[in-house]
C-alpha cells in the first residue's frame, strides 16, 4: 500500500499506446467504431489516422489515481471532458494533483496530454482515503 494521499501530492502516469492498443481495447470494450481500428476508414473521414478511444484515455486517468492511492477500490467518482484526438505511438501523459483531503475523501484534478494536445481536461477524481 502506498502512503495515504495528501493535499498537494502530484499524480503522474505515462503510457505509450502501441499500434494494436486500439484493437485490443475495441475487443475488450466492445467499441468497434472503425475510426479506432481501420486506418483506411479513418483517413477517408478526414482523420490523421486511427485515433485512440476516449474511454481508453479516461481509463488511464482512472489508473493514475488508483495507482497513486495504492488501492484499486479507492476511486469513488471520476468526471472528464474529452478534447483532442489521441494518436497511436505517441506518449500519453496523465498529470494531476491532490487539491484537497477532507472527510476521508481526496479530490484530485488531472488532465491527459499527448505532445501539445490535451486529450482530457478538467478531470476530477474523488478517492477514499482511510
Amino acid at each position, binding site marked *: 500500500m502506498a502512503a495515504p494521499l495528501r493535499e498537494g501530492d502530484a499524480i503522474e502516469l505515462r*503510457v505509450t499506446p502501441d499500434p494494436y*492498443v486500439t484493437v*485490443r*481495447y475495441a*475487443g*475488450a*470494450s*466492445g*467499441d468497434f467504431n472503425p475510426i479506432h481500428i481501420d486506418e483506411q476508414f479513418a483517413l477517408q473521414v478526414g482523420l490523421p489516422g486511427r485515433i485512440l478511444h*476516449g*474511454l*481508453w484515455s*479516461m*481509463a*488511464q486517468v*482512472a*489508473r493514475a489515481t*488508483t*495507482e497513486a492511492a495504492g488501492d*484499486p*477500490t479507492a*476511486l*469513488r*467518482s*471520476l*468526471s*472528464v*471532458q*474529452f478534447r483532442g484526438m489521441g494518436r497511436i505511438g505517441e506518449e500519453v501523459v496523465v498529470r494531476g494533483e491532490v487539491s484537497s483531503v477532507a472527510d476521508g475523501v481526496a479530490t484530485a484534478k488531472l488532465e491527459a496530454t499527448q505532445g501539445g494536445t490535451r486529450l482530457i481536461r478538467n478531470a476530477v477524481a474523488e478517492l477514499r482515503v482511510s
Partner: protein
Amino acid sequence: MPDFGAVPVPVDKIGKRYAPVTYAVGREKVREYAHSVGETEPLYLDLGAARAAGYADLLAPPMFVVVYASAPFIAALFDPELEIDFARLVHGAQEFHWEQPVVAGDEVTTTLTVKQISERAGLRFYTFETVSVNDCGATTCSGTWSTIVRGVQ
C-alpha cells in the same frame, strides 16, 4: 450541413427510459479488459490474490463499467426517436460514481434514461444517465454520458 433550425429539439423524449440490460461479468473478460488498459493490479488479474483479499473472484477495474453499461448507451444513440446523426456525434464528457465493487460472476443490470436534450450555437447536446445494479440490488455505478452532435454553425 443539417439545419437543426428546421427540426425542433425532441424535448418530449427527455425522461425516456430504455429497457434494462443485464451483463454477466466473466473472469477472462475482466482480465482482457484490465490488460487492454495497461492495468497490472493483481486483484484484477490474479485469482489467488483476489481471493486472499476477500473477493469471491477477480475484482473488475472501476472503468470496467464501460463494458457492462455501454450497451444501453449505444442502443439510445441509434434510437430514431432521438434523431441523432451518428456521423456527427462526439463524446463530450463522462462522469461515473462508483458504489459497490464488481467481481467476476456478478450479473449487473443497467438502466438508461435520457436526462437532457438541448441546443446551443448550432450544437445539439444529449445527456444520458445510467444506473447499474448487481444481483443483490445494490448500485455498482451510476454514469452521466454527455454527447454533442454538430450541426449548423
